[in-house]
């Protein structure tokens, strides 16, 4: 019996150390409940923060262009669950915000006005069971495409029901490399173009009525991004692979392609060892921006690359680049050491700093609303 007495003392001691965590209480207290009208009237920018791969620390930030106010982690604060692992991209369609969470294999669908009685960013649905989703493109109200890095498939969904309605195979059955990994999408008439980045050099052309790959355009190694300018030319920038890559290594390059004929109009070479990425357009789609160390800017009609970057990348490595379609303000992203909240620089179209603000870990895309 004496033994038990001592044991009780130990147990009581341990109980004192014991504590409980209460996430639910925290979420209730911090619930945002922002009105969608507020977001629209204040000209907001949403920023998706990828977070670290396999950490599950992606997040969504909200920036107010007028007041410069920032609210971080809005998805968690509204819904009480984390966004997931690697928030890749975002799109607003019919009063809903679609957030593609790449390594969680899902797309979150959030209220952005479709449900007037619900607050902004409130969870209303999801598309799950995706392998490695990257981007979503809406063809019409009942059809959208989702590209994927690993599944060799473009998934077709119905945005009204969020059900999967079909699949397009992009498997080229290459015995050598794992192809095709599809990325960003742009549309010209009924054709959807998508760039294939990792270990690839193609831009696939998909007929959105037949849901079939109908053509492919060969560019340099590893096209990173894709836009369509006002003259209906596609632009992509390649990163050229890396030194020692079994797929190859070359100087990065910028490509201009006629969307109607699928013919390459011109390609611009950088130097070996440069790192090209993130080709973007301004709101009027007449000026290109891209990253290669610093930020570069050129008119879509220019016949040669500029001599100097528009914004030097000396002191920081820019990770992401976004252009405000309304006023062409530049949102350049500094991910710092990729393990702490990153910083967004908001610059005027002339490159003058307007603001800088801290968001989440590895900020990626900005969505202007």
């Amino acid at each position: 019996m004496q033994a038990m007495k001592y044991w009780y003392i130990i147990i009581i001691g341990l109980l004192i150390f014991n504590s409980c965590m209460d996430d639910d209480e925290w979420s209730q207290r911090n619930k945002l409940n922002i009105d969608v009208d507020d977001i629209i009237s204040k000209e907001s920018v949403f920023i998706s923060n990828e977070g670290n791969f396999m950490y599950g620390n992606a997040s969504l930030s909200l920036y107010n262009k007028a007041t410069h106010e920032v609210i971080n982690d809005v998805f968690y604060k509204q819904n009480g669950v984390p966004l997931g692992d690697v928030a890749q991209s975002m799109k607003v369609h019919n009063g809903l915000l679609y957030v593609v969470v790449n390594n969680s294999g899902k797309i979150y669908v959030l209220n952005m006005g479709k449900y007037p009685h619900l607050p902004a960013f409130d969870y209303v649905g999801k598309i799950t069971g995706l392998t490695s989703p990257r981007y979503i493109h809406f063809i019409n109200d009942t059809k959208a495409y989702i590209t994927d890095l690993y599944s060799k498939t473009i998934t077709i969904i119905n945005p009204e029901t969020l059900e999967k309605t079909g699949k397009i195979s992009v498997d080229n059955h290459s015995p050598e490399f794992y192809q095709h990994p599809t990325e960003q999408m742009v549309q010209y008439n009924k054709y959807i173009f998508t760039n294939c980045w990792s270990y690839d050099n193609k831009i696939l052309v998909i007929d959105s009525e037949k849901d079939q790959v109908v053509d492919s355009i060969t560019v340099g190694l590893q096209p990173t991004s894709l836009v369509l300018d006002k003259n209906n030319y596609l632009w992509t920038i390649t990163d050229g692979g890396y030194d020692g890559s079994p797929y190859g290594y070359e100087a990065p390059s910028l490509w201009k392609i006629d969307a109607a004929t699928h013919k390459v109009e011109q390609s611009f070479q950088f130097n070996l060892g440069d790192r090209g990425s993130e080709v973007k357009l301004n709101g009027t789609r007449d000026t290109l921006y891209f990253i290669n160390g610093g930020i570069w800017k050129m008119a879509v009609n220019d016949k040669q690359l500029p001599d100097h970057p528009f914004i030097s990348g000396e002191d920081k490595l820019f990770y992401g680049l976004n252009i405000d379609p309304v006023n062409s303000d530049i949102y350049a992203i500094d991910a710092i050491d990729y393990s702490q909240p990153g910083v967004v620089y908001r610059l005027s179209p002339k490159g003058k700093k307007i603001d800088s603000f801290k968001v989440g870990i590895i900020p990626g895309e900005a969505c202007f609303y």
Partner: protein
Amino acid sequence: MHRKSLIHTILLTSLLISCFSVQADLPDTIKIEEVRIIKQFSKKQQQAGVKRQKIDTLALSTLAHRSLSEVLSENTPIFIKTYGRGSMASASFRGTAPSHTKVLWNDFEINNPMLGMVDFSLIPTWFVDDVNLAYGAASVQKTTGALGGSVELNNQPNWNKGLNIHTLTSFGEYHTYDQFLAVNYTTAKLSLKSKAFYSRSENDFTFYNKDIISSVDLATGEKTHPKQKQQQADYEKYGILQEIYYRLKRNETLAFKIWSQKADRSLPMLSSDEKNDNKELEGESQLNNYNKQYDFSTRAVSNWKHYGDRWNYAVNLGYIHTDLDYIYDVRLHDGEINRRIDSKSDVNSFFFKASGEAQLTDNTKFNTAIQYQHHHVDSKEKIDKTAYDESRTELNWLGAIEHQWAKGLTQSICIQTPVTDNKFDPLIWVAGIQYEVVQKNVFNTQFNVTRNYHRPTLNDLYFQPGGNPELKAEEGYTTELDFGYAFLWPKTDLKLNTTGYISEINDWILWLPAGSRGYWEPMNLKKVSSKGIEFKANLSGFLSEKLNYKFITNYAFTKSVNYGKSIGENDLSYGKQLPYIPKKSMNILASLNYNKTTIIGRFNYYSQRHTTTSNEYETMRDYLYSYYMTNLSIGHELSLSKKVLANIQLKVDNLFDEDYRSILQRPMPGRNYTILLDLKF
């Protein structure tokens, strides 16, 4: 002199069972016990001024059916970062990186030269006879690059004549089954020890997943979370260990040990993952994605030892082969499973060591060794076709001298001259001093300064893509001051130990993206300063003839801070604690033994850990809650016959059913039970 070290040895080794019961339990092997003591005496002699800790045998026996990761997290100040039950577990010793903790198995380093680290979840406690921690400076006696310290795992001969069989069977929740076997056969000259284990678990524990939403009411916006079964966390591990000890002469022994094991594990997805549609409790869904890891290793050492009057010599040979395979499968549009990642690595290491130690004078001891290591890594990824095939040769000379200046005052110096791939590396050295007073109680203080040096791993140098052959080694200086006090009362022993250390590590290696998007590359970026205090207390004794107790606690305060050059103007990581390193940690092992019944409580605490380098609180994922874990076991011993001794135990893990995580979005099981049956023939 001899008497003093005998007392010291008893102090070091007697924590669980009291001196009385040790003597009472000893069979007719007094002579052999003497050999052990002399060995420990000579070990002690080489290491004046540095800190070592032997893990209590109670801790090892109570966790014999688990992996070493649990032994370390519950009984030492080492922080174990675990990805989940049965999953990878890496160590941070004094706030350093996993590759800065070296693990020696019978004197040979078993860290994977490709990754630098050791997965402690793959070391079965059943296979080790004793575990010693060599803190910072103490590691330099046997290895290099252990900037935090080293963990020494040893197997010892059992010279009790005859045949002994020991089995341990355990059944746990989540379809967990473990079987362990040990057979010892000993004659006057030969000791054979065979051990084997088999462990498997579905690991399908249920948890309430607050990281995803299962349904929403669109009228009210109300959401629910699913109750799920953990998927893809199953494991199966098995292995054998054979030890052969042979006494060539009275003062010469030959030993051979071989340890081979295999582990097949599925790697669970994060709790926020929804690649596999729905993981609701009811109805298993078809898996669209899964990960698997296969580990296979064979380690062999042989050793010849000669004990002379003045000189002791030893020659060791070792070989390690490790296969580490990882696959990631995805389901394609046509429903077919396609392999996306198929990575294989084949690592071979060969070791040779010759050493000698001599008692030069009554007060001076000298120790020298030459060590050769050759590592070869063949790493391939089949789908993306990346690969590297590289090797490294390390040659080391070690010299150590220890001198006793006056009674109780001893000084030691140890130097190593490492040569890597025919190039001289900077010197590694330790200088230590120790003062000890042994009267009724024992007081001990020691101080040391160390310079150590950690080579980049072969992945750091050659991994495709990103490996950087230009990387410099990480190098550091450590200073350590330690006080120990042992009170020896008639029925109670109390041992207290406090250590303070300061460590500066330059050229700390960090992987960062090389361009704006794409692959990552290691760089010598950070400068880390690690400072801390470790406190340990052992209390053990008798309350009555049949009632004894033991209470062991470790507390550590660790400040492991980055002082590296800032990465641009926005970098806030300067002066901040490294991610995932708790500032405070504590553990307690308490046991109470009455007659044949033993109750053991194990308690473990880690303070809040940051997940970012800037230590901010921007989101709920920027930190992890502090962690309290309590485990309890009750065992009863039965004599089934004259020759069969049984022990039945009931274990409760996570006694208070804590909802906890060691890493973001890696759920851990709630309260769970295990039944163990231990039989000794």
